């Protein structure tokens, strides 16, 4: 059965749709997401377009339905970018469509540059949204520093639309570097690899990519030409054998494309960097394929279908999300009791009728 799709073009229209709804919605941005629950669809496609872009103030404001393709192109034209490297899930999830700004914030997307530039939430300046009662709300703004009232804008980062439908988003952007360089060093052991990554990240050379993939340590440095040469030189002294390589592994790492071709389950695990090393060693012994990013603090695992990764991790992790695959365990990490109570109370407060993404 085909589902009704609502495509509001204004906040008022969206508010009316929500206020008069009697059944839950799937909030759809680009629809590149994995498994819509089969509810009526609430598309953000009509809430799109760049509203304001001031390169000299590092500020971008756009409708939540604006495609990432449009935003990335505009920024690139002006020598700027979203520094946190939002992931493109199409390869690994086998979906099509154009990812949107709203979907990106709703998932708090970020790639390898997390170690330096943070995630979407760190660059979020403000947003507008409509909650489950149809209330149109503004929070934060377009300026770079703002502590006026509670920061409920950042609550939406990673909330997957459970607190409301975002309509407009303001972000801080940053300049593109003059040069990007990648360095590599063979290292079969995850323990030794993470120790080396820690050394690099603990240096003043502003490493902004630090991964261990297929038996190699990968480091990225960016900046002015001369600066990159200098830092590459310093880093190769710090980690003998580390050399510049003429390749760009970072987009593949960002999108976990290395896991796209198999049909195994894919897990994304966030954990303390040194635990990343321990977890990698343990999982490899269980036949799990492991890649580490964020200096060890992000672990990608491809496992046999239905594998209970969380038990296998034995408490080493902060949280683990099953990005692809099914199983008896929930896809998202269950929160501790106290936190879960607060979170579900918040969800009820913003969405008393349970309309969003349940």
């Amino acid at each position, binding site marked *: 059965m085909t589902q009704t799709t609502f495509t509001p073009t204004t906040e008022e229209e969206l508010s009316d749709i929500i206020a008069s709804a009697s059944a839950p919605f799937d909030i759809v941005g680009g629809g590149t997401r994995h498994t819509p629950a089969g509810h009526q669809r609430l598309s953000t496609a009509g809430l799109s377009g760049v509203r304001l872009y001031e390169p*000299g103030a590092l500020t971008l404001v756009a409708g939540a339905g604006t495609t990432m393709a449009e935003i990335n192109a505009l920024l690139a034209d002006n020598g700027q970018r979203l520094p946190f490297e939002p992931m493109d899930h199409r390869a690994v999830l086998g979906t099509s469509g154009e990812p949107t700004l709203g979907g990106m914030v709703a998932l708090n997307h970020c790639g390898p540059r997390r170690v330096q530039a943070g995630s979407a939430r*760190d660059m979020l300046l403000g947003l507008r949204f409509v*909650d489950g009662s149809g209330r149109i709300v503004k*929070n934060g703004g377009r300026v770079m520093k703002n*502590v006026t009232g509670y920061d409920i804008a950042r609550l939406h980062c990673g*909330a997957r639309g459970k607190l409301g439908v975002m309509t407009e988003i303001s972000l801080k952007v940053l300049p593109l570097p003059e040069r990007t360089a990648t360095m590599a060093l063979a290292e079969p052991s995850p323990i030794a690899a993470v120790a080396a990554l*820690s050394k690099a990240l603990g240096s003043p050379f502003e490493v902004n990519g630090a991964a261990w993939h297929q038996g190699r340590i990968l480091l990225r440095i960016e900046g002015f030409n001369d600066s990159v040469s200098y830092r590459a030189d310093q880093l190769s002294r710090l980690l003998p054998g580390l050399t510049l390589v003429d390749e760009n592994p970072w987009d593949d790492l960002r999108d976990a494309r290395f896991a796209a071709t198999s049909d195994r389950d894919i897990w994304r695990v966030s954990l303390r960097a040194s635990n990343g090393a321990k977890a990698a060693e343990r999982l490899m012994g269980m036949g799990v394929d492991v890649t580490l990013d964020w200096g060890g603090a992000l672990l990608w695992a491809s496992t046999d279908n239905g594998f209970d990764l969380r038990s296998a991790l034995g408490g080493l992790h902060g949280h683990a999300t099953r990005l692809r695959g099914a199983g008896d365990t929930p896809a998202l990490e269950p929160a501790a009791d*106290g*936190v879960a109570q607060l979170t579900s109370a918040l*969800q009820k407060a913003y969405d008393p009728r349970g309309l969003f993404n349940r």
Partner: protein
Amino acid sequence: MDMPIPSAEILSRRADHIAALKSVVPADRVIEDVIGLRAYECDALTAYRCTPLAVVLPCNTEEVAAVLKLCHDRGIPVVPRGAGTSLAGGSLPTADAVVVGVARLTDVLEVDYDDRIMRIQTGRTNLSVTAAIEEDGWFYAPDPSSQLACAISGNIGMNSGGAHCLKYGVTVNNLLGLRMVLMDGTIIDLGGAHMDAGDIDLLPVVCGAEGQLSIVTEATLRILPKPEGARPVMVAFGSSAVAGACVSDIIKAGIVPVAIEFMDRPCIEACEAFAKAGYPDCEALLIIEVEGSDREIDHQLALIREIAERHNPDEIRESRSADESARIWLGRKSAFGAMGQINDYMCLDGTIPVSELPYVLERIGELSKEYGLGVANVFHAGDGNMHPLILFDANKPGDLQRCEAMGADILRLCIEVGGCLTGEHGVGIEKRDLMHAQFNAQDLEAQMIVKDVFDPKWLLNAAKVFPLDASEARRA
């Protein structure tokens, strides 16, 4: 400034409440004598004072939980306090409130350079956090000017920033986890040594909640290796507008300095008289600091010089040594002290889009004439966070009121041009009633909902942040 009328019922049972506090925590944690309480009657917004019912200084999270549970059960309001340096009245008590201070929670619990984290108790001062790791070549980035005195607890309460946040972000960007106690005594852990949350992340709303959601007792902080070096350049201009245009051009050119600070003539003159830093005689001055190795610094400073020269500066003074850097920073760092020498002043904290700088400075000049009060401008230009200092005479009847009225006009101006009331100091009581100018009823409701969830009885620092008329029904 209106505050809610204290509960006569609570005041009349004061002795009983204090005895009860002493039954749940050791008696030496409780301060009840008039002289002891005096230190807690205000924060750095000294124009407003009130003696609290009692003060408790717990020695661990469990004691905080015991005190909160007791106050919760008895319906006694609680005001969380760090070091009391809030400029917004964030830690100002009411007469019927128990102040719960974290001043005795100062331990470093863990430092891990491999994982680039540090876990501390939140009563520790900002500067002593960095001091604990400095010798090993590390630092904690957010650096409010009050860092010698202010505590991490207050930094979390206000989501404080500092001169270097253009590059490193503010508190929320450097906070990975925390332990906190809810008003009913429940102890909650959020986040940890890992970098993000798996689902809805409560951390960013607790950070900056001005002590209204919980009392934070421990924090996991992101720490960073120190840069190889840092050096500033000072550029003097004939007008504020040109200085503003120069800032925008630097950023457009792809350079993100660690700090860009702005001072106008009244501020430069006061600093010069006070600190004798040898600043040029000019209308506006920028201090721009960059980081890296010597060679990297030279390169960035050369780029900045090139851009600045296009704006016909009066003077460019580039630091070549630690000594010269210190001299350039001397005046800026003593700005607040310098103004304090010549006048009473009120420090505003609105943020504006950088592009609106010339217009806003012009309007502030006009308001200054209308009200007959002097204004000196010093601020973080890279991110548009302004600190206009309005000069007044506290001994002159009516001056404080005029100053507050002018401050409110300037903040409304910030909102009008697309900015906000406060960039880093917080709302507290100071800007509470101006919240109506920035937010409509729906916006405020969407924020107050969060407090309903964390503190259903509205006992924690309830008379702050939200306009009293907006929060009245909930506080009743």
